[in-house]
């Protein structure tokens, strides 16, 4: 008989296929990070998305660093000393630092980097867009002049990666001025050097033994940054041991995994609001302040807390209490108050109105917040329809008045400066100011904060700005959960960056002893 024989062969083949591969599993010195996606660019002047910063952050260094457990405390990095004198900042640079290609790092690299960043105007450039000029004093000294005095400049430079003047000059004559080269190559001074980029799969980094900083014992020699777009797959791979750490693990999985055997939980504050619901100030019915007030008061904050399970607080405004100088603790809490919401709705004269929300797709928390808004508004007799769209389409919809609301997660990349956050979210022409909130007085106030040398006075101004935004009812701050990262017990050293969603400082991560 032929058939049974064929069966046997087939069974045998599949059977052997299922056996684990013969060779011993992992090289102990390789660290696999499941990242949330494939970078569009690894150009430090353009990188903007969390999973692009994974590469730039580890391959390049910054002039200053900060202490993740106390962000107001700045630490030396490529610069050892810095001083402010009015609108001029002077940085003394570290000596003997080398790029991965062997070139020495000097002040001309800083100038070339900042000039290029400001010319391109993308990436993190908004953090330093008030720089007027950069002057080389000597190879180890650089002076940066701002348009107006800016106390936050050094802190904001902790987000600006330094590339080599050599690379920049070499590609200055290219038609694209080196955009393509920097987009897929990387030559920094950082703890890890760029090895290869397998399109669609992964980027490989190698530990830079000549780095100026100190690695912990058990630091990994090789890092694989694997692109895994689906959050559930990241969670499952982490659980199954395929990955050593993962970016953005869905919260339920993160909590479950973190408390399962072989894992522990790293939890910390870094989110300013997650999610925040932006209301369109120019499209009826959300252009009515009382109507917005009604939505803010009707919103079921308890549902969001339930959703996030642990470590969630209800924000009282735009700046979290743990941020240096935040006035939040002195502000009244925002709570669900249906009676007050009904009063506000009656005052607005918009009873029975309906509104549409186009929200960014891909974040379960966002669509959940929109659903909570929908069911909360239904209690007021207001109908909310929800549509999901990719980020760019969703934010365009509200900016062009095709949508009444927008949902966003808020974090602030600057460790010390709240004004850049305000500029992006609440000031005229701010990129995330999707509902186009417009208050010239607030604009003037926020722009003045960095020029004030006295910290007390600055804190008072921040408080005034905080209250202006709250009283406009422009935003529904739905929740502020802590960030939960499940770390396998075989790994140690991961720390949550208070000024980013989720970071990966590979130079701090090591095998558990």
């Amino acid at each position: 008989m032929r058939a049974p024989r064929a069966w046997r062969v087939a069974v045998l083949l599949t059977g052997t296929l299922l056996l684990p591969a013969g060779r011993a599993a992992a090289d102990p010195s390789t660290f696999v990070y499941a990242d949330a996606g494939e970078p569009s660019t690894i150009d430090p002047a353009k990188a903007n998305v969390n999973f692009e910063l994974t590469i730039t952050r580890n391959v390049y260094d910054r002039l200053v660093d900060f202490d993740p457990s106390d962000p107001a405390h700045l630490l030396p990095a490529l610069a050892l000393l810095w001083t402010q004198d009015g609108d001029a900042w002077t940085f003394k640079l570290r000596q003997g630092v080398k790029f991965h290609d062997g070139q020495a790092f000097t002040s001309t690299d800083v100038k070339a980097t900042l000039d290029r960043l400001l010319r391109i105007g993308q990436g993190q450039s908004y953090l330093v867009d008030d720089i007027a000029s950069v002057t080389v004093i000597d190879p180890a000294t650089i002076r940066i002049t701002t348009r107006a005095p800016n106390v936050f400049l050094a802190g904001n430079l902790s987000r600006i990666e330094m590339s080599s003047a050599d690379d920049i000059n070499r590609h200055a004559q290219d038609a694209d001025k080196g955009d393509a080269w920097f987009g897929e190559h990387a030559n920094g001074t950082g703890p890890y050097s760029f090895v290869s980029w397998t399109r669609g799969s992964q980027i490989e980094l190698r530990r830079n033994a000549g780095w100026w900083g100190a690695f912990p014992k058990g630091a990994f020699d090789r890092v694989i940054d694997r692109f895994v777009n689906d959050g559930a797959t990241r969670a499952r791979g982490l659980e199954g041991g395929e990955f050593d750490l993962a970016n953005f693990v869905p919260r339920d999985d993160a909590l479950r995994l973190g408390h399962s055997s072989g894992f522990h939980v790293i939890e910390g504050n870094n989110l300013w609001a997650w999610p925040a619901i932006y209301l369109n100030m120019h499209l009826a019915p959300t252009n009515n302040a009382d109507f917005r007030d009604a939505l803010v008061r009707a919103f079921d904050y308890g549902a969001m807390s339930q959703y996030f399970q642990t470590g969630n607080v209800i924000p009282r405004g735009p700046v979290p209490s743990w941020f240096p100088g935040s006035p939040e603790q002195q502000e009244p809490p925002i709570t669900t108050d249906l009676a007050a919401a009904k009063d506000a709705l009656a005052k607005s004269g918009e009873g029975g109105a309906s509104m549409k929300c186009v929200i960014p797709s891909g974040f379960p928390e966002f669509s959940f917040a929109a659903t909570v808004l929908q069911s909360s508004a239904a209690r007021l007799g207001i109908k909310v329809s929800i549509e999901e769209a990719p980020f760019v389409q969703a934010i365009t919809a509200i900016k062009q008045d095709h949508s009444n609301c927008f949902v966003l997660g808020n974090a602030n990349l600057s460790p010390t400066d709240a004004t850049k956050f305000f500029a992006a979210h609440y000031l005229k022409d701010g990129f995330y100011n999707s509902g186009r909130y417009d208050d010239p007085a607030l604009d003037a106030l926020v722009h003045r904060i960095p020029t004030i040398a006295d910290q007390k006075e600055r804190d008072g101004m921040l408080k005034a700005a905080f209250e202006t935004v709250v009283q406009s009812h422009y935003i529904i701050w739905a929740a502020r959960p802590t960030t939960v990262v499940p770390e396998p017990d075989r790994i140690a050293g991961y720390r949550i960056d208070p000024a980013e969603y989720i970071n990966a400082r590979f130079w701090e991560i090591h095998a558990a002893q």
Partner: protein
Amino acid sequence: MTAFIARRLAWGVLLLLLVATLTFFLSRVVPADPAAFLAGQNTSAATVARIRAEYGLDRPLPVQFATYLGGLVRLDFGESLRTHRPVADDLVQFLPASLELLIVSFMIYVIASFWLAVAAARRPGGAVDTAIRLLTMLATGIPVFWLGMALQFVFFYRLHWLPLAGRFPLRDTPPPVHTGFLLADSLIAGSLDDVWKSLRCLAMPALTIVLNLLAVGTRLSRAALIAEFDRPYVRTARGKGLGPRAILYRHVLRNALSPVLTVTTMQFGYMLSWVILVEVIFGWPGIGLYAYQSFEVFDYAPVIALAIVSTAGFVLINLIMDLIYPLIDPRVRGLAT
């Protein structure tokens, strides 16, 4: 014969043109602004405008279309906004992964479905036949994406037998790239170990495709075989005293080949269409995943390119089948000229 091929090719080109036009114009009426995506978040309006001009996105649609068609002739599919690379380069990069998956699955499928169909058709109405018919009928109801996830659950999550996703084990270095086909590259590198690793990664996505195709394919091939069994010549052969095996292998199979081939061709087109799903679920870095991820961020060029490439694949397969038919079935020969 030449005229026939020329006519077929002309229709193929027309089809490609139709698909290119359709997808191009559909994808350009999008409300969202690709320049805004390119600029990234938190950039000024001036930067967005500069980028729009750099990429020619500010030119009128017909001009953009003409430029696009002009490029197509030179196999230039434009530039991907997401990867900042020519789409043609990306396709060359990702196509082998898709082809490897498709070819391997298809080979397994053809063998398995033929074998099952023969087993069923040998005794229509028998126990084997009934079992196969009921199973395939139930299996047609399983969605591909569900099946893929279920396999992941069982073989990775529960049993830890097979890797979760991807083409090659994460921590290992794949063989040097010559062809882009990992199996071939592993062989060139002379590493059976690498062949093995590639096969293990290939197992789940291929199984998903094969099971999905088998459900429909076996039913159809079986039907074609049984239809042949009903023909008068089989009765004649039986009358001559030929045994069932001789009838099957000497007569029925030869005659049933062309309807089975038709079914198989159709299945191949079907598979091209849904390979995106399998690639998305298994993180398989092929053109389907590439186009889908680009689509997610409003990067049109790869989506159009995928449409054109898979249509071209479909045309090509059909053309090859048209050429094969006359060889295996003399009855068609007259029609083809």
